[in-house]
């Protein structure tokens, strides 16, 4: 019995299968617990789009620097809440203070573009997301170049 289980576990071809079984088991257990889970309506990031505003994402123009209403978990940490990026890294904060250019465009620093599209308050998330993309790209390009070289 133990030996047979060992045989199944010791083949890495079975890896995906085993993992899928585990996920399915968890999902099955989860399905039974669903009735006990309630949806929390007052979401962390409420978003109402004011179509008449000059900051409407699909109608750029007018005053570039303005604030939108954004609810943050920790407003005291986000002094620039409501601007393009609520959290500024020390470097971008420095740039924003000495130049008028940062914040005038959504692609002013990595993460900025996703930042504005997704949420205004979670700067570190977007940095990590771009890092993941970058890592995946680095692996793929290395493998590709090695095949050619």
């Amino acid at each position: 019995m133990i030996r047979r289980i060992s045989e199944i576990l010791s083949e890495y071809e079975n890896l995906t299968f085993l993992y899928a079984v585990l996920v399915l088991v968890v999902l099955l257990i989860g399905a039974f617990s669903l009735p006990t889970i309630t949806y929390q309506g007052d979401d962390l990031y409420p978003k109402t789009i004011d179509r008449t505003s000059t900051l409407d994402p699909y109608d750029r123009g007018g005053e570039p620097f303005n604030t939108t209403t954004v609810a943050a978990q920790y407003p005291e940490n986000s002094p620039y809440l409501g601007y393009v990026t609520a959290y500024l890294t020390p470097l971008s904060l420095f740039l924003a203070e000495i130049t008028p250019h940062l914040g005038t465009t959504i692609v002013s620093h990595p993460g900025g573009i996703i930042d504005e599209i997704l949420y205004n308050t979670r700067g570190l998330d977007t940095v990590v997301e771009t890092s993941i993309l970058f890592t995946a790209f680095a692996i793929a390009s290395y493998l590709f170049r090695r095949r050619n070289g």
Partner: protein
Amino acid sequence: MIEYLIFAVFVGLLLHGIHRKAIARIQGRPGPPIWQEILHVLKFSFKETWIPATASQTLFVAVVIIAIGVWSTALFVLLTGGSLLLLFAVYMLHKIVEHGLGLSSGSPYGKFGAIRSVMSAASEIPLFATIAAIYLITGSLMISDIQAWQAAHGPLLFTALPAAIALYIVVLAKMHYSPFAVIESKEIVSGNVTEHFGVWRAGLEAAFGLKTFVLLYAFIVLFLGPMPLLLAAVAMVLLLLSLSFICALSPMLSPFDTVTIQIGTAGLIVVYVLLMGVIV
């Protein structure tokens, strides 16, 4: 502080010696004297020492230092009544030391040891569920709180028997000559410590002595509750002898089977914890 460390190293090595002696007597051999392991460490430390040319030199030396540091941390966590979670984290970090020992030398035997160590690491992680069981019962993971709980409610050994069994397997897996000790099984020479000789080996043996002391003492503290030092020492030796009996009488399991058994135990613990979580 330093006196605790040195004391624990010596007691741990002495426990190793008792372990060897007990196994030998059970198997009808005279066995070495019980202070043999202490002499061993001294002998190793007097041997000529260098680093193999094939090794990843920095890593080769660093893991020895990390091994000692890791178990010193564990000892202090235990003594100050710190977080049980942290104690187990340190225990898992020991697996990294094992991997590092084997991988850093470049020797194929070390590598085999490291690969086996990776397998056993994967199976020991789920034994973490033990912690959840203790948390659900006592409502705290600080060792000092757990001791206070036991002083009020009696030993955890009876209240949380499955958790105790799981932890017993954890301790057993870490003993020399245990059925789970596939990492140092003799067909791969000395497994992951094959290339660590001389001073490096002496340092490692000291760390392992510390490890044995911490694991046995942790088991006593967690499941039998606070007790005077002398009684705790007696309990540790008794626990060690029970482990020696298992080690002496059972054969070395095949690497894959050890994993299956440990994962199986862990699965049972997970079910137990889930059930307890639902009921409580």
